[in-house]
């Protein structure tokens, strides 16, 4: 009896931790999903912008002795600028076509951004400490990292803000129009280039913001972008490429599966069930739970 109770408690702990971790996976992925939904761009360099967001947190905490969470707007703005430049130099040429060339160009961006980070910050892993780092909340039989709780709250707020921005503002309406039908949107007077570049900047800005939140409990290194990309891709595909809310839920779903695997089976293999799930989704339901219909 006690045995099953312990297992049930462990499972519940895993699920709750999974939701916290998953919320951050959600905000990591929302930007990628947005860029795909609006421009059909799969930005393989998304993880690299997350990585720069993480380094922004490191610089704030170690070099400037500022609470990393206070610089969230700064890292959002910086990564939005980098994203706008990236769009202007590279992705402008590939709007509307997730082709081989587009994916490869994104990989090229990722390599360059990764190596620039290595030249600036060195190859070693770096950490940042916020006021919440390393502190825990104990609730009855459960315990949670304070940094993860705060990160998850930021993730929920940011995702809601983006959804409201898209639903309620004139700009959001124009973005949805361009996503729906670029030519028709231009006919009624929407400047699609301006919409695309701002939407792309929002997408990478979110990556930067997510990175700065993440670094309060997860160390960064130049290659961290590559290692985060799989989970971002899986969350986006399972939730639905192009759907903001769906992608966020996809992130939570991934977090839960990952934590349950890690705590109840084997933490070294925590991502393997996710990779299998991705294959199953691609084979059976490539639009994910809430995604755009496949053309």
């Amino acid at each position, binding site marked *: 009896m006690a045995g099953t109770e312990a297992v049930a408690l462990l499972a519940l702990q895993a699920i709750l931790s999974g939701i916290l971790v998953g919320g951050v996976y959600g905000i990591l992925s929302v930007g990628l999903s947005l860029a795909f939904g609006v421009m059909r761009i*799969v930005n393989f360099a998304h993880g690299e912008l997350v990585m720069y967001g993480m380094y922004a947190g490191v610089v704030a905490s170690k070099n400037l002795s500022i609470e990393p969470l206070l610089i969230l707007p700064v890292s959002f703005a910086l990564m939005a600028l980098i994203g706008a430049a990236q769009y202007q130099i*590279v992705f402008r*040429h590939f709007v509307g076509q*997730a*082709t*081989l*060339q587009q*994916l*490869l*160009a994104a*990989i*090229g*961006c*990722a*390599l*360059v951004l*990764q*190596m*620039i980070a*290595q*030249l600036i910050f060195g*190859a070693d892993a770096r950490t940042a400490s916020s006021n919440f780092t390393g502190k825990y909340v104990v609730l009855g039989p459960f315990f949670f990292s304070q940094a993860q709780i705060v990160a998850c709250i930021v993730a929920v707020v940011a995702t809601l803000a983006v959804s409201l921005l898209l639903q309620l503002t004139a700009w959001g309406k124009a973005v949805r129009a361009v996503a729906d039908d670029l030519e028709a949107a231009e006919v009624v007077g929407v400047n699609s280039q301006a919409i695309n570049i701002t939407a792309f900047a929002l997408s990478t800005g979110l990556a930067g913001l997510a990175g700065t939140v993440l670094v309060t409990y997860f160390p960064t290194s*130049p290659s961290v972008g*590559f290692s985060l*990309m*799989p989970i971002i*891709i*899986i969350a986006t*595909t399972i939730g639905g490429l192009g759907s903001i809310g769906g992608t966020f839920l996809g992130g939570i779903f991934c977090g839960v599966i990952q934590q349950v695997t890690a705590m109840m089976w*084997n933490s*070294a*293999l925590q*991502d*393997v069930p996710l*990779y*299998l799930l*991705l*294959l*199953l989704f*691609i*084979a059976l339901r*490539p639009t994910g739970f809430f995604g755009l219909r*496949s*053309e």
Partner: protein
Amino acid sequence: MIDAPLTTRDIARPLRARLLTRPLVFYLSPIAIIALIPLLPFVNNYIIAAMVRALIFIALGQAWNIVAGIGGQLSLGHGVFLGLGCYTTGILFNKFGVPPWIGGFAGTLISLAVALVMGSMTLRMRGVFFALATVAVSLALVQLSRHFVDLTGGADGLALKFVGTSLWAMQSRSPTPFLYAGLAFVVAYYWTTRWLLASRFGLEMRAVRDDEVAAAAAGVAAFRTKLTGFLLSAALTSVAAVLYIQYYMAIDPEAAFGLSQAIQLQLPALLGGLGTALGPVIGGALMIFLSEITNWGSTKIGVEGLDILAYGLMLLVVILRAPKGLIGLIVRDAARGATK
């Protein structure tokens, strides 16, 4: 040596006439030059080793070029088949003394099985999902190969037992035998690509690549064509993996399945010219030349990773400025087999 255009008139000509579009000496002299290089007095093992590396990555690039360049399916995780080939060959040799001649065969069979499962699950979908699936499989294999330490040596990787120079074990102290083996691979893969470009099957692959709906309407079995191309490319990668593991004598999870390795498999064809027979040859040689220079530069100024930076910049410049690769730059309207 640029690929001949494929027209209806050409299809009517016999295959041999379509393949040998130039005098035989044109094809044989480059082979002879490479083969004679080790005999030159100033050539040392360092130069030969660099050439072997170039030949290995040319062969791997030629194999990737078939699925991506001719077939238009972006396999971002082709390291899967390199890694499966290397690990199978290495494990069978270290644990059971099975020579790589047989181990490589087993590795190729395993790769084919994995490619069949991956392909049947994902090739019916839009291309981007195939690309994502190949990434997922390669990263899952990174984690799995790190985890099963008894079998794979874990994160440290697997070192082949050295038994001295032996043809049976495909081992040699000097790099020169690998130069000839690599040359044989590159020539064989070059002609495989040429044959593919001239054959009906290659035409179908390119038709599916350029417009899947139109190809299907014209009676091409699109899914089967994509799958066959993927299987062929996976098998050729796995066979070349034997050369890789026998030359490097070691493999680890990142070198086998990692994304940076996958990019090195893609660069030769991308730099040289996607979908052409000569592209990966030129691109692979350039890639290794570049990596030698940047490695030298890295040690000179004490900064790691210049080669990856150079790769990334080359990739961007080629895709944005010369989408047909170097071949496309050298010969205007060359590479009619190339990706649009």
